[in-house]
């Protein structure tokens, strides 16, 4: 999902700075996307395969199951990011990306997205199929957080909404590193907004879990 957008950016013939900024946003978007689908929507696989009911009667909570999936997803994302660096080389995209800072902030941003992941997982428990919710979340969060264009280009109301999304600060921090600037404030904001959504997501998730357990079934597929 990174290369088509990066090649599209090439059409505008802009400099390395532009390409690097676009690449940073796209890599973060890729992490977000994998996190949402593999962790949040990952429950749908267990639900469809019929293993979720067994997991629900085991002495583990759904957030714990999601945490295990999250760790697996982060390891997978790290692997894919290394492959991605190889692809950039093959595509002769000349960019000087701050890889260590980028990966560190991507991991931190992933944790800040746990709230949204839990909301998606909760929607799977309640609706069974919520691919569209996942697709809308993936695109809206990616766009508002500046994955393909910095939020300063957006109209004021949309800029305000961008400021409410943790990923915005993760992407902004790496773009600041690219410009050689300090990143303390964006990281603090990333953690504060991430914690806020994690609390909301946790409440929503626990309610969905409780409802399923009260019903005694995950329902027919």
């Amino acid at each position, binding site marked *: *999902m990174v290369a088509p957008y990066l*090649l599209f950016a090439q059409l505008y013939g802009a400099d390395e700075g532009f390409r690097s900024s676009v690449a940073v946003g796209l890599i973060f978007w890729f992490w977000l996307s994998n996190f949402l689908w593999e962790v949040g929507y990952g429950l749908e696989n267990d639900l469809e395969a019929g293993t979720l009911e067994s997991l629900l009667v085991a002495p583990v909570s759904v957030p714990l199951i999601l945490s295990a999936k999250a760790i697996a997803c982060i390891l997978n994302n790290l692997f894919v990011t290394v492959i991605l660096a190889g692809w950039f080389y093959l595509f002769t995209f000349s960019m000087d990306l701050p890889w260590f800072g980028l990966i560190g902030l991507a991991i931190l941003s992933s944790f800040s997205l746990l709230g949204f992941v839990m909301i998606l997982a909760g929607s799977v428990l309640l609706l069974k199929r919520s691919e*569209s919710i996942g697709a809308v979340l993936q695109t809206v969060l990616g766009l508002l957080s500046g994955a393909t264009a910095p939020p300063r280009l957006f109209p004021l109301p949309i800029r305000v909404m961008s400021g409410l999304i943790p990923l915005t600060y993760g992407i902004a921090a790496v773009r600041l590193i690219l410009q050689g600037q300090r990143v303390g404030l964006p990281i603090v904001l990333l953690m504060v907004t991430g914690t806020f959504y994690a609390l909301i997501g946790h409440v929503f998730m626990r309610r969905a879990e409780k409802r399923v357990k009260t019903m005694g079934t995950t329902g027919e597929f």
Partner: protein
Amino acid sequence: MRPTLVFFWYSLKYRARYRGDFVWSIVAPVLFALPAIVLGYWGEQLGGLQSFVAATGTPQYVSYVLLGALYWNFVEGAWSVAYSLHSAMRSGVLESIFVTKLSHLGMILAWSGARLLGTTMHSALAIALLIGLAGWPGGVVIGQIALVLALSLLGSYGLSFILFGLTLRFRDADSLLYTVSNIAPLLGGVFFPIYILPSFMRPFSLAFPFTYGLDALRALWLRGRSILPLPDQLALLGALAVAYLVLGWWSMKHFELLSRRHGLEGF
């Protein structure tokens, strides 16, 4: 024929069962295009529109991207039948389907038919946006566009036969489809003309029918230039589509034979 029609009806009902999910899919092509549109806006703000026009032959980057998203949404409708097959395997109903009178071709046509019908409905919003932005292309051009889509669909069925066979044999379709779904738009130039692909990828792109289909679609609707003169391009698209269909049919039969030897168990 009757088993195929019954299975088509079942597939359609299954797809529409989760109404919220089904209705929301109307935004799918727009969601696919939106990140590129915003990126295009950024490029325009930085003064890169002239460069875009020089590369694509049109200043209408929103329509250019929307057409790419619509086209991919459509051709994916046929080859993504492997997802349906995988889902039937996972939920344990595939063996029951196999013992009915439904042929494999019937399964593919029914699953893809239901998907394509859904995709057509879900494309309405993006098509309306496209008409609003790029205008109505006229009756003759619509006929030519229909021909491009029909030929592309033929090629897509060829690919679906291959993926169907591979899924039967190797079962784990997720990785396979994920790879195809990501690489195919890249090879076909979903948001860009293929000449900007790295040189090692261009031969693969040129052997791909969808490259010519999408390029022809843009040339027709946006009145831009095409890779080849349009009649030649349509002939090449048709030839490649038939070649994919024949190759796909052969490989499906081959993998089906192998899957019968190895069985469907152990999923």
